[in-house]
């Protein structure tokens, strides 16, 4: 019998707060904020009397008429600029949830093979006929695939709400919502890109994620200190003994999401180039070895 879906449900029972409640609250809060902004926008659309200082556009002007301001901007633009402007805006809406997601995944993986040793419930889980390999796999799949999809759903709700609010604004200003908003907004493209970037990141940073499960499986206390301390120690040792930083750079490169975005871009084309690089191969190999270690350690794990 395939137990993986059940094991993933189990993770959601345990971590309902960070997997479901937190993204729901954040999404709800941001939708509410947008709604307030929209409601605060006066209906005086025809005279778009916004204090736009044309000479100093960087000085972002917060007025009650954010929606109107945004629409007028879009209306003035060429079609090509409109597409990139609008989609950048939509992507920005996803930033808070993406950042929270990263921390949720980080702390979840760090705790997933540690907490049940600590509260001794490992003796219950291990009394059931589920192999250690399936257990560890379920936790990785939960963290790296299922939970990101939940957060993506939140992002999608945010983006759709923003478009709906602005559509209402466009209607009352007699602008074409299709031309300004729904046409240029590449929603599916955005979501596809989120998934593609995340998939890429899963493999690119597999050593990092797998390392967290390894620490979670062996640490007898303070897993966070082990998770950070050992790579840090390796980096320092490398610096002292070889006065180089190849390993340290590799580790940083395959950990920090901003760095990965910066160097390789988040565009699908750039990722394709990296997909079959030696760098990527090294990450996948090291990652798989570490996953194997985590499974092995889990097999020997006992209450602490």
């Amino acid at each position, binding site marked *: *019998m395939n*137990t993986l879906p*059940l094991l993933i449900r*189990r993770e959601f*029972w*345990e971590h309902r707060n960070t997997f479901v409640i937190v993204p729901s609250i954040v999404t709800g809060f941001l939708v509410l904020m947008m709604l307030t902004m929209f409601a605060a926008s006066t209906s005086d659309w025809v005279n778009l009397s916004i204090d736009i200082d044309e000479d100093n556009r960087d000085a972002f002007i917060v007025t009650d008429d954010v929606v109107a301001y945004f629409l007028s901007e879009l209306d003035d633009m060429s079609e090509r600029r409109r597409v990139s402007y609008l989609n950048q805006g939509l992507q920005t809406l996803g930033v808070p949830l993406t950042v929270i997601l990263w921390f949720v995944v980080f702390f979840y993986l760090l705790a997933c093979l540690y907490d*049940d040793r600590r*509260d*001794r*419930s*490992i*003796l*219950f*889980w*291990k*009394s*059931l*006929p*589920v*192999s*250690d390999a*399936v257990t560890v796999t379920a936790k990785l799949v939960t963290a790296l695939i299922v939970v990101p999809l939940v957060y993506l759903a939140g992002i999608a709700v945010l983006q759709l709400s923003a478009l709906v609010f602005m559509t209402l604004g466009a209607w009352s200003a007699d602008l074409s919502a299709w031309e300004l908003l729904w046409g240029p907004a590449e929603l599916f493209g955005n979501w596809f890109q989120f998934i593609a970037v995340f998939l890429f990141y899963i493999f690119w940073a597999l050593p990092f994620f797998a390392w967290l499960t390894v620490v979670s499986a062996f640490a007898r206390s303070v897993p966070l200190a082990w998770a950070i301390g050992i790579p840090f120690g390796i980096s320092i040792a490398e610096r002292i003994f070889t006065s180089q930083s190849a390993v340290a750079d590799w580790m940083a490169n395959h950990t920090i999401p901003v760095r990965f975005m910066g160097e390789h871009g988040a565009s699908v084309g750039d990722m394709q180039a990296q997909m079959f690089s030696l760098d990527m191969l090294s990450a996948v190999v090291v990652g798989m070895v570490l996953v194997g270690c985590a499974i092995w350690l889990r*097999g*020997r794990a*006992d209450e602490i």
Partner: protein
Amino acid sequence: MSNIVEVRGISKRFGDFEALRNVTFDIAPGSIVGLIGPNGAGKTTTLKSMLGLTDFEGDMRVTGQDPRRGRHQVMERVCFIADVGVLPRWIKVQDAARYTAAIHPGFNQDRFEAMLAETKISKSQRVKQLSKGMVTQLHLALVMAIEVDLLVLDEPTIGLDILYRKAFYEKLLNDYFDHETSIVISTHQVEEIEPLLTHLLFINNGQIVLDCAMDEISEIYGEVLVPPENWAAADGLDPIHSRDVLGQKAMIFENIPGQELAALGEVHVPSVADLFVAKMQR
């Protein structure tokens, strides 16, 4: 039918400490075995070895398999309750049942519900809302709904009050035991489980010091209330234990024919508790 468990000379060290020393025993189908020893004697290590939860040296078969190779395969035929309170605190009662049912295809939902109905546990409660005794009841209900070859109980009632303890063992014997499933119970409270047992395993300092069926005890061991005039003669038969009882000595002998013992005084079968004390002090 072959044995459910065959343990052949297993040893286990924790650094300098020898937790198990060349432990050998069998568990036959349909037996209820008491694994009895003081704290730190190696009870839990023995049971954990049987369940594939810890590594060891030597040879062992549980339901025909080496537990070190495939814990999850062994667990298809074995259930385990480690002392009270190892159920995850965050889980809801109904989810614990749902999870166990999906993992164990043989989980009998009706049986679980019937067991639960006899307690005050509600299915929407979380484990952390239950008392210690209720958590044990829930765990027992989960385990009793699964049909297995071997049930392993490691100090299952430690820290519970006497009402829960009695009810636990009554349930186990009346509702669960069907003469096909074997049960191993580890404890250091001998008296409580004595009436249940078909076999005794005493363990001390990592070694098995007694391995016999309950109905063999009367053949092997005899306790004699020896009056002072026979003390010298009794000592000659090398009693394994002696204690003072109202001016007489209650002595336990091993492998001495009944007639010889009768000549010393009043003979009866030693209680498991007295036998335990005798074996532990030797």
